[in-house]
């Protein structure tokens, strides 16, 4: 990347976080859709990757995302009890909490979040993104990510 090009990258005040969000198809992805339909504005710091269930998210995906350039990873699913696949989100909760512990040991505390966002919580989706963005900003850039050329 040339210096000239790099200078043109829209950066706000220097650096903006890069968040990857795994959203389950039935609740959180729909919640993100509702945020859109309702025009609830939030910072363009997040990319959404749709999975059918939050329980699909493997720790390896999270680690890969952090290694490859994410400053934060959000996993969002249905509220406990609302899971389209009965209790997939409970499995996700166990798995994500374990991954959080591992990340803490790697010095990546606070960069992984698990949220329950329902299909009717468009506002909450936008708030979660705003809040997580602010939190990551406080933490600063992810120290372990490899910036690819």
């Amino acid at each position, binding site marked *: *990347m040339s210096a000239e*090009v*790099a200078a*043109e*990258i*829209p950066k706000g005040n220097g650096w903006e976080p*890069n968040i*990857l969000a795994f959203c389950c*198809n*039935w*609740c959180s*992805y*729909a919640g*993100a*859709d509702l*945020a*859109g*339909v309702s*025009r*609830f*504005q*939030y*910072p*363009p710091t997040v*990319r*959404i*990757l*749709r*999975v*059918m*269930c939050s*329980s*699909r*998210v*493997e720790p*390896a*995906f999270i680690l*890969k*995302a952090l290694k*490859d*350039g*994410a400053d934060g990873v959000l996993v969002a699913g*249905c509220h406990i*009890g*609302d*899971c*389209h*696949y*009965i209790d*997939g989100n409970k*499995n996700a909760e166990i*798995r994500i909490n374990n991954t959080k512990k591992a990340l803490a040991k790697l010095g990546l505390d606070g960069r992984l979040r698990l949220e329950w966002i*329902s*299909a*009717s919580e468009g506002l909450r989706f*936008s708030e979660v993104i705003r809040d997580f963005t602010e939190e990551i900003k406080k933490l600063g850039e992810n120290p372990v*990510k490899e*910036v*690819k*050329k």
Partner: protein
Amino acid sequence: MKGSVAVVGGGIAGIQAALDLADSGFKTYLIESRPSIGGVMSQLDKTFPTNDCAMCILSPKLVETGRHPNIELLSYSDVKSISGKAGDFKVKVVKKARYVDDAKCTGCGTCTEKCPTKVLDEYNAGMSKRKAIYIPFAQAIPRVATIDAAKCMYLTKGKCGVCKKVCGPKAVDYEQKDKEIELDVGSVILATGFKPFDPSALSQYRFDHPDVITSLQFERLLSASGPTQGHVTKQSDGKVPQKVAFIQCVGSRNPRIDRKHCSSVCCMYATKESIIAKEHDPELDITIFHIDIRAFGKNFEEFYNRAQKEYGIKYINSRPPEVIVDAKNSLSMKYEDFNSGELKTENYDLIVLSIGLDPSDSTQGIARSSGIALDDFGNIATSIANPVETSVPGIYVCGVAQGPKDIPDTVAQASAAASKAASLLSKERGTQIKERKFPEEKKLSPDPRVGVFVCHCGINIGSVVNVPNVVEYAKTLPYVAHAQEMLYACSSDSQVTIKEAIAKNNLNRVVVASCTPRTHEPLFQNTCREAGLNPYLFELANIREHCSWVHMKEKEKATAKAKGIVQMAVAKSALFQPLYKQQVSLINKALVLGGGVAGMTAALDIAENGYNVTLVEKEKELGGMLREMTELYNGKKPEEVLKGLLRKVSENKNITVLNEAKLEKVEGYLGNFKGIVNARGKEIPVDFGAAVIATGARNFEPAGLFGYGKDSNVITQAQLEKMLGKGTSANTITMIQCVGARNKEREYCGRTCCTDAVKNAIRIKKANSKASVYVLYRDMRTYGVNEKLYENARDLGVIFIKYDVERQPIVQNGSVVTVHDSMLNEDIEIASDLVVLSTPLVAGENEEINQLFKIPLDKNKFFLEAHPKLRPVDFATDGVFLCGSAQAPKLMDEAISQASAAASRACTILSREFIETEGAVSVVNEAKCIGCGTCVTMCPYNAPSLYDATVKAEEVTYTTKKSKINPAACKGCGSCAAACPAGAIIAQHFSSKEIGEAIDAFDKGVKSISIGKDMVEVTV
């Protein structure tokens, strides 16, 4: 008896009715007078209260209707007469001469381009020009040109002939004549819609002035496909207006011109149009002049509140008598602010007349020619108990032809009408239909060749995201063999374009960058199938809901993000493999939860369609809230309706009623649910293929409000209703509206309370004309034809006093009511014998059912439907449907319509011979599987199981456990794949490889794109 139905009218009502019927095994003729289906909804920019783009949600339905093998579209055709009887009707249809052979026309548009004659464009409400040969709008179905015979130079003067000369396929035929055909059908559904009121009849509003326009014209101005591409400008000078006023009830609530009805939708569309206009131009100053604001539907009150608080739209309670045009041709209005009594004069740049809904000419014409009764307002007459049945058995009605209503109520009624027609003809189901055929799938070449189609969505995406820039970027991505932009990717011509691009570029993966897969994936998947591609080779990149709509003010960043989203989609899609669904049997039985009027109606409709139903009621007896009612708002007795329903339910052999019963457990999925109902302590297993939730709601108890619970003279409207069964001796009755509603705690409007109050006020006055009845209200919301009740009440001497939310009435000792009359601006004291509190319905115990079926609730704990506009009785979960007050408060006829609608939707499933399982299921890589059984413990559906496998390794043969997954049971959640310690399970379509590629692309998309002035530079 015939297995076919004629649906008259191709607006959203007719479309929904036709789709339901065609999906449940009936040949359907859809007859539309205009050149294209779509009706008035096709002209709308957005829909309230979610501001969903109207065309975006309608277009997939248009395409589906046009493609359906069991729907025969007769567009540009009028119904001349209907004769015969239920089961055997003859419908005479005139196919008007298009002067274009629709079999030959490809819709290429060359004729339109070359035609020299310009004509006012009715699609843009007369604010732009179209050609004499035209296709009405971009998403038109059928996409066929039509010659406007009254304006065509060749047909009127014998000159020109350009269109014929330029037409490649030789489709233009000046000799074409009107053709009369006769259809033999078993039933007819009238969905003839409405005619927007013509405000020229009210000369005081100066519709002759170019800057006085109708709300439909304003809607077109807001639309990206409108005459100004979405920029609100004045017709007089093309300048941007600063001050805009809406005048409500133009052609509604006006006895002087014989328009006594409320048009039901104008308050909300004016609110919507104001919000959209403010989104386009935040500097706009918008005032809405109104009588009452009727925000009665689900989430309407919240929408109205947002309009005021977030968008600063002013609502003034006043009806300006006239629009004044001065010597300089500028506009002003004098009005009296009803709230302050002040006389004011204001200048405006643009005045929008919120025009009402008149019965359409075809409604009147068909009713006359075919002997169908009309009501006092000119709508097709129906009754509360049978809201879709006309005076002629076998002919049904839905939508605004039956009375003014909004889109979801129209859609529900359309499904209801379909249910009635289907039950009448249930013995003939499947006799006249054919299967949908797709071409054989192309052999997949080893290298991925991805086609990327980036949608402008009018201006929904294009005004924020630089679409051409995204296209250029997409072209640089690995595997992309083709990329292009589209104005509306979902329109029918775009489907043709996509298919052509697939063929021409030999594409084997398709990415459409537009909106959410939750609504649009099936449409594009079908397009892929028609082009010989497996539907699982398709991916949607959501750059609207997740990008342009949420980053409206950050255009550059939004463009960069859109590129990132596209890149992730492309990377993932390159790994996609064809997947196939399996056909499994289903249980052709239904479960209905709740035995009120909605539940009983739903159960009866399903049973009359020929399927077994188990009706579960928690109380000892069926009837629900109908038992609490003592009079319907048409003066009829509820007992008669109840008795009729109870008799029909008990006589129907297809219905099993379980009283004092509760659904305790449910498992399974669409087509194959297994439940356990506890009825009087006994556990009864119930298997079913589809379920209807009709569990109703309950009355709000206003404990502690206005002395309720302390003073026995303070009662609720529901208690008064019961009391009036015997009559009351009270002489002065004061009703207070909106108790426990439209407040901080419960923001929504109770919808039914105004109609209930007015009905009971009339009953009191009719029984005792000397009684004094006061109704203290904030807005009287007797919408639609119930406006006549409000008028009757005033005629009978019921006194209506408007109070302000900030100055609540005060009740002392349960008798003396003090209210500040906000119109007279003074306090009034009413010594009352009875104080009646009108309270809203609140959600019942929905939390248990929501857990059982995994169906969502809204913030007020009512059930959340799949889509507020076009899927009002569906859930996002397949096979489960919703009706009645469990969804939101509603009047009885509305609950009945919804119940029939839910039945119709359920029958589209129950009528199938098989259901298709999920294609994107998980599979086990046997070589990697270590037989640990983690997947078995993980799966909630028992899809994986272990078996003894014989493994040969080198020279050793041994037996070990291996897992296999039953594809019919697998739901594709991918939980097992995430848990498998050996990485032996592949969650197809969401495999580690596919997701991994997307994660890889996620980084690249962000890090290395830069946007120059009009160039994009990419470093991957």
